[in-house]
């Protein structure tokens, strides 16, 4: 046999050249307009300090059918959770005999823009709060009701409803408040940390290989602007910390608990990475 055995150095040079791999499967060039009316920002200039020039919504990486489901709110299965969330908003619960509406009135006005600015610094708790934590705060302190357990159906519906009041508005968080900057830094470290038996970081998949197919999945930048997201594969709403935990589990690592400091820091950092994209809740993904 006349196979040549290349010198290792030469082989590595060759590999570096090939590491670019086969033609990248780019995200589509398409516009997301909900119900033919509301034009969404799915591409925008990346925030200062981002590794990307442009941040892209996960919607651009999905199939035509999935994209169409999100663009039509009658077909979007996530809208059922918005409806359920509206019911909960008006439901009295807890010893204080109050509903969300008792204090906040019409969500369409009082919650407009609110979901677009979470996570937010919470001075009393001395850490960033996402909507789930804020809602539980209201439930215990103001309604005298039980806090929701992570991923309780009502928690997902209510978060979906509140985020939906900001649909089309740019996702933007305030890193100057309190100690947000150090949480951002902690989140960044986490994003580049290699995890699990497969030894992968968030960045390995979402920064280095977005646009590629990992088996049937078209890797996106892993942005959070659509959460909670309706996932066709699970036929259910998926919360952000559920998604984080799923991605971490896929590296064969034990994921941190939902709302743990690790995942809150990650939420702060990843939200910043997608700053400027429109809130799409409820987004539809595969």
């Amino acid at each position, binding site marked *: 046999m006349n196979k040549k055995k290349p010198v290792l150095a030469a082989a590595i040079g060759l590999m570096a050249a090939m590491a670019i791999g086969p033609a990248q499967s780019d995200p589509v060039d398409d516009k997301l307009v909900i119900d033919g009316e509301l034009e969404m920002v799915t591409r925008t200039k990346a925030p200062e300090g981002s590794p990307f020039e442009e941040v892209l919504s996960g919607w651009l990486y999905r199939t035509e059918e999935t994209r169409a489901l999100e663009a039509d709110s009658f077909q979007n299965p996530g809208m059922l959770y918005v409806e359920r969330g509206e019911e909960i908003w008006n439901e009295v619960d807890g010893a204080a005999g109050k509903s969300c509406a008792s204090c906040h009135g019409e969500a369409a006005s009082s919650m407009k823009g609110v979901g677009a600015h979470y996570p937010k610094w919470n001075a009393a708790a001395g850490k960033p709060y996402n909507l789930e934590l804020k809602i539980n705060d209201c439930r215990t302190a103001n309604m005298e009701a039980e806090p929701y357990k992570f991923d309780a159906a009502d928690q997902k519906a209510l978060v979906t409803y509140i985020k939906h009041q900001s649909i089309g508005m740019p996702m933007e968080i305030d890193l100057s408040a309190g100690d947000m900057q150090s949480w951002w830094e902690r989140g960044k470290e986490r994003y580049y940390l290699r995890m*699990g038996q497969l030894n*992968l970081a968030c960045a390995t998949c979402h920064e280095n290989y977005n646009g590629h197919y990992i088996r049937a999945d078209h890797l996106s930048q892993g942005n959070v602007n659509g959460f909670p997201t309706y996932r066709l594969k699970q036929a259910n709403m998926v919360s952000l910390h559920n998604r984080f935990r799923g991605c971490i589990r896929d590296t*064969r690592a034990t994921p941190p608990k939902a709302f743990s400091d690790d995942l809150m820091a990650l939420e702060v950092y990843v939200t910043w990475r997608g700053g400027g994209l429109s809130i799409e809740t409820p987004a539809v993904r595969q």
Partner: protein
Amino acid sequence: MIKAIGLGAATALLFTAMAGAAQMQPSDELSAETSLTGSVGDPVEGRKVFADRKLGNCLACHAVSDMSDQLFHGDVGPTLDGVANRYAPEQLRAIVVNSKEMFGDQTIMPGFYTLKVGVDVADEFQGERILTAQQVEDVVAYLTTLTKDPN
């Protein structure tokens, strides 16, 4: 133990040469020069390990036309058509054992026979390699059959 039946004569020759130099020494150090099991792998088994999502799951990232019967080949890594012409078997073994040694720390490709892994490894995988020595040899044997260059 040698189950490499039905291979081309050239490949069989190569395997004999490899088996001769083999040592029974599975270790985490890169002993990729020689077979991890002391014998030649089985390419038929290797083909299964390659496709199995719970084992190699190599198709998640690599396309190979030998498996065009399977849906969904990834395009994260290069297509493996003709890979046997690009690398000697011991290099293929080194890539599968711990790709980081070959491609650098930043590679996305997992090391399939190494304990140098990431943090917080889930309980069920602690202290475990992704593939057994036998599975690595089987995959390497399969890779050496990929002699058809892309198009």
